[in-house]
């Protein structure tokens, strides 16, 4: 960094006013007996971005804290930080190289969509059953493993879509069977501490699946072949394809942004399935029943919905979503029985960031984590540290979220595991 004092000076100023704003705003809203749930967040963001200029009117007028009032200062804070960084390190690729910035944003978006999708399954399980499934990473792993074996070992030449569907069905069946066999004691009053029981039993499932796969499939890294080749596209013309140029395994946009085929297909599939899932949850009777159970089990039962059946469906669906993410990524990453550990950790972070039990929150949280990781990897001046800190970026966001908005981005104020906003 060429002028570190600029960056650290601005950063220190922002931190000071963020802390002041967070405390002061809560104090003023509390004094007027107003809702303070979003006050620390808005105060911190407004303080960080505008200092006393924005903070004083906020504290004096105590307006209603709308979504706009939360989002705008947050974006402004990011903007101020970026401008300070630009002045402090003008030679940085993130400042001086536009195509690099575009590539990093696209990379962050793509991986963020996949993260978000993976976290969706965990969110679904949490909102219905009220437990965090520690076997989520293992469902992701078996999705990839089954797809690999179907496409390369058992039935080479099988249509990849069919293989992926079979892997998802297998994960669904495992999830449903496990829920029936091991999770029913939780809501039948057979165990004293149902939440702890849920955590421990899913831990047990994780180890069982992981070591079963290691014993049967071995520990050598596996990888499926690319499912689909990109068609050959050259736009606007073959001679000068500045807009888009594809080869079988890669797509280049504007001669700067390069997207590999496996990541692109995985992200597109995730978006399609996310859309389908939202349709299922909002437009079908079963989906509405799931949402009803997530909001109030007893009321849903009175209305004729069988909550136990919804529990099974949620756990199986959650596992299937993770398996689908794995099935799509086994063509991008080397696959091992332990491959699910890191995505599962990220999913836990995203679950809290998005708001416990919120499906849109999980998706948006995933994208935010993906973008934050891309920014950190690309912009941190010391390349040796930039990549090393990848696991920490998500934790930074998680810490900030817990400090400023403990309910997460889309979580409700009094949401609990079983009653989060759907």
């Amino acid at each position, binding site marked *: 960094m060429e002028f570190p004092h600029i960056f650290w000076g601005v950063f220190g100023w922002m931190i000071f006013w963020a802390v002041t704003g967070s405390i002061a705003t809560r104090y003023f809203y509390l004094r007027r007996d107003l809702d303070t749930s979003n006050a620390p967040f808005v105060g911190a963001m407004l303080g960080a971005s505008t200092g006393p200029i924005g903070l004083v009117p906020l504290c004096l007028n105590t307006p209603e804290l709308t979504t706009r009032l939360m989002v705008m200062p947050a974006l402004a804070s990011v903007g101020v930080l970026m401008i300070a960084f630009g002045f402090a390190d003008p030679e940085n*690729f993130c400042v001086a190289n536009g195509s690099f910035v575009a590539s990093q944003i696209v990379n962050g978006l793509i*991986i963020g969509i996949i993260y978000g999708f993976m976290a969706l399954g965990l969110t679904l399980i949490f909102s219905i059953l009220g437990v965090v499934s520690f076997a989520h990473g293992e469902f992701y792993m078996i999705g990839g493993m089954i797809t690999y074996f179907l496409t390369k070992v058992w039935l080479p030449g099988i249509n990849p879509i069919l293989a992926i569907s079979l892997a998802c069905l297998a994960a669904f069946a495992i999830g449903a069977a496990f829920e029936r066999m091991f999770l029913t004691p939780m809501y039948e009053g057979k165990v004293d501490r149902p939440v702890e029981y849920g955590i421990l039993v899913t831990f047990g499932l994780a180890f069982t699946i992981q070591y079963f796969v290691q014993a049967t499939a071995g*520990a*050598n890294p*596996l990888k499926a072949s690319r499912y689909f080749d990109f068609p050959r596209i050259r736009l606007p013309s073959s001679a000068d394809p500045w807009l888009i140029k594809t080869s079988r395994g890669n797509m280049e946009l504007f001669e700067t942004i390069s997207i590999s085929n*496996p990541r692109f297909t995985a992200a597109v599939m995730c978006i399609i399935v996310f859309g389908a899932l939202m349709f299922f949850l909002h437009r079908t009777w079963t989906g509405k029943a799931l949402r009803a159970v997530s909001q109030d089990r007893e009321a849903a039962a009175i209305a004729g919905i069988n909550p136990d059946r919804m529990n099974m469906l949620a756990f199986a669906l959650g596992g299937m979503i993770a398996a689908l993410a794995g099935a799509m990524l086994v063509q991008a990453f080397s696959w091992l029985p332990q491959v699910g550990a*890191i995505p599962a950790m990220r999913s836990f972070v995203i679950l809290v960031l998005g708001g416990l039990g919120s499906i849109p929150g999980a998706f948006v949280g995933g994208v935010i984590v993906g973008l934050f990781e891309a920014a950190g*990897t*690309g912009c941190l001046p010391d390349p040796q540290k930039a990549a090393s800190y*990848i696991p920490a970026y998500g934790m930074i966001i998680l810490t900030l979220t817990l400090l400023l908005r403990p309910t997460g981005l889309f979580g409700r104020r009094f949401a609990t595991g079983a009653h989060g906003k759907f």
Partner: protein
Amino acid sequence: MKRFGLLAATAILALAAYSGAAEAQSCPIKIGGLTPLSAPGAVGAGEGMRAAMLIAEKDINAAGGILGCDLKVIIADTEGLPEKASAMMEKLITQDGVVAVGGAYHSSVGVASKDVANNRKIPVVFAETWNDTITGDKQKFIFRIAPLSSWASSTLWQAALLVPNIKKVAILTENTDYGIPAAQETSKGLASGGVEAVTFSVDIGTQDYAGIVERMKAEKPDYIIVLATGEAGYNFAQQAADAGMGPQDIPFQAGQVALESKAYWENVPDGNFAFVQRIGTPANLWSEKALALNEAYKAVTNRGVIESYSMEAYDSIAILAQAINEAGTTDGDAIVAALEGISHEGTLGRIYFPYGTKKDPSVDGKGDEWWHQWPDVALTMIQYQEEGQSSVDAPIVWPDAYKTGEPIYVNQ
């Protein structure tokens, strides 16, 4: 009364000596084998090392065992984590009752566990841990048959300096006791040749390299060196290839894991023309013993060819067995004395330790890291020049003493 006391003391001493001898030679004689069998360790490599150590156990028992007893290799999973390595070393010694320890893949495992073994006077022959400090602390019970990190790095940068018109090198390293010093030594060596190096360090479990690859691409390097163990090496190489920075795009030295050619080609289908550093005698110069091990290993593991680290794991057990036989006891001090004077015909070549308690490395002007260090490890650079090629068939392109083919520098 005095005579009775003397007799009683003699009887007690004799009993103690007898029981000690009986304990030392109780069968089977156990040797520990450290290897990573769970994430985030290099599980594939760990499984290979385990297979090799168990083959060593079988071979040694078929040849008569140790001191008239069968050998039993107790495998311990280090997970590639220092804290787990210390715990496993402690467990092997105190619970399993091993008399010596071989194996180990990650440097961090060697760095963390060596003190435990040394304090408990249990000899260790580390198989694949490169960090200089492992032997650099000059501990009595610690030996190594893997190359030193500084020495292995010198082959990396010397080979890199031969790339035509090279000005800048990008190094991807894992942030471990192996990766960080290896990257530093390599950067220093490249700087001595007037070549700039940019290092990117990552956690060993990293899967997604898209952001790092883009940043590396923006640096416009002329050569890429990967110092990441395990499947991280595969993930990076293929993701770099997807982004137009792979072995077919610019000269690219893949991680050592690429020696497992079957897994390499499955995980890095666009990995042709990658350079790979190989430890140990080149395959065309393998002894009968190495060839026999290769066949046994392939049958057990279903892999294409034995990797260097698995040969090292085999030799680490075999050399300890020979040392115990030569010492005639399982006493740690006696085993160390035998190891210091050993000449073992291993699969990697003739293994011996010229420096130790009898001769300090400084006598020959060498640094402390040469203490209990095998000095003749052959270090070569091979290059895959055909898709699907076995690492045994791939030509050795460096150094000249072992050369079997000319390097192909892509994009020149």
